[in-house]
């Protein structure tokens, strides 16, 4: 039986190429992290600070990382998640394959433009409030592949990044340090602030 409405391989390639080219054209600039709230002077009162403390504690002690490990920094993440460094101390040991159940994206590795629409889709579908750690030189700026035509020069071209973690690859201690910094950032967040 012949099945109709099956696209040829060329049509699929053309559709995908068009999608990727549109994304490249859209993401020439850097997406800034909306972090002006970090510097805001707040009119704090007792009620709100208590709720903030509880909410910040709840949010930072149960960060669930989503699976988005395109390249080799993932091995350092595996080491961090394994028994020696053990990120279950931070309530992070549940690494979700579904973006709807995760709220932290640890972008471990080089990202190519071919993979970029999928990463953006994962970020769009993550539960709110969501956080991103750019792990490694490639995630920050493209690393040594920066001049390549096919490599995204930094994840902040397609998604806003909260914490930048240098290294090629960063050691597990460095990743834990980045996680601690993200905890501090989440702890500073107040619910009366505008933004994310």
């Amino acid at each position, binding site marked *: 039986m012949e099945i109709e409405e099956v*696209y040829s391989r060329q049509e699929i390639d053309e559709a995908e190429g068009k999608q990727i080219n549109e994304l490249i054209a859209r993401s020439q600039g850097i997406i800034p992290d909306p972090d002006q709230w970090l510097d805001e002077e707040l009119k704090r009162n007792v009620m709100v600070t208590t709720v903030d403390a509880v909410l910040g504690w709840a949010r930072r002690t149960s960060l669930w990382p989503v699976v988005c490990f395109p390249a080799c920094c993932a091995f350092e993440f595996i080491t961090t998640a394994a028994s020696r460094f053990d990120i279950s101390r931070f309530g992070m040991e549940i690494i979700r394959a579904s973006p709807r159940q995760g709220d932290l994206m640890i972008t471990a590795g080089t990202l190519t433009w071919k993979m970029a629409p999928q990463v953006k889709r994962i970020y769009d579908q993550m539960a709110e409030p969501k956080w991103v750690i750019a792990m490694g030189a490639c995630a920050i700026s493209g690393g040594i592949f920066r001049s390549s035509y096919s490599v995204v020069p930094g994840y902040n071209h397609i998604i806003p990044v909260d914490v930048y973690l240098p290294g090629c690859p960063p050691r597990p201690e460095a990743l834990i340090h980045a996680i601690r910094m993200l905890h501090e950032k989440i702890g500073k967040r107040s*619910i009366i602030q505008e933004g994310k």
Partner: protein
Amino acid sequence: MLADFGYIGLLLIVAILFAVTTLLLPFSLSLPSRMEHYSRKFRRYVETRWPLLARFIPHFPSPPKFMQIVPYNPSPVKNSPFECGMETVGTSWVQFNFRYYFYALVFIALDVMVVFLYPWAVQLRGLGLSAFFAVLIFIAIIVVGYLYAWKKKVLEWK
């Protein structure tokens, strides 16, 4: 005896608390931001269809920011049932060749036969003649099935 039922009551209380904290609490905390989203959506809908009518809709005060603890920011990508990865292109009603199924069935029969033959072959001398004939009967049953499949042209790939 009453103490045993006491544990059941405790379990029920824990189950109810679990349901409340995992389902009802996030939903109720996200209600203000949901309300704001839907009122804005409704206003935009009326303004695009009937601009004159939109003047008579009162402005509902949006809930204060501190009530919107659980954010509610839906988007078409977020609401789509399809999750991460490559999007499907074309129809997904693709038929697989049913000969794969027959092939797998024949393979499983012979595979299991090997599993049974191996321990028998290791202890061949110790088990004696009766075990030999038992295995022969076992192989004969499978060979009959194999010949039947062969006769039914399962092994031909057309």
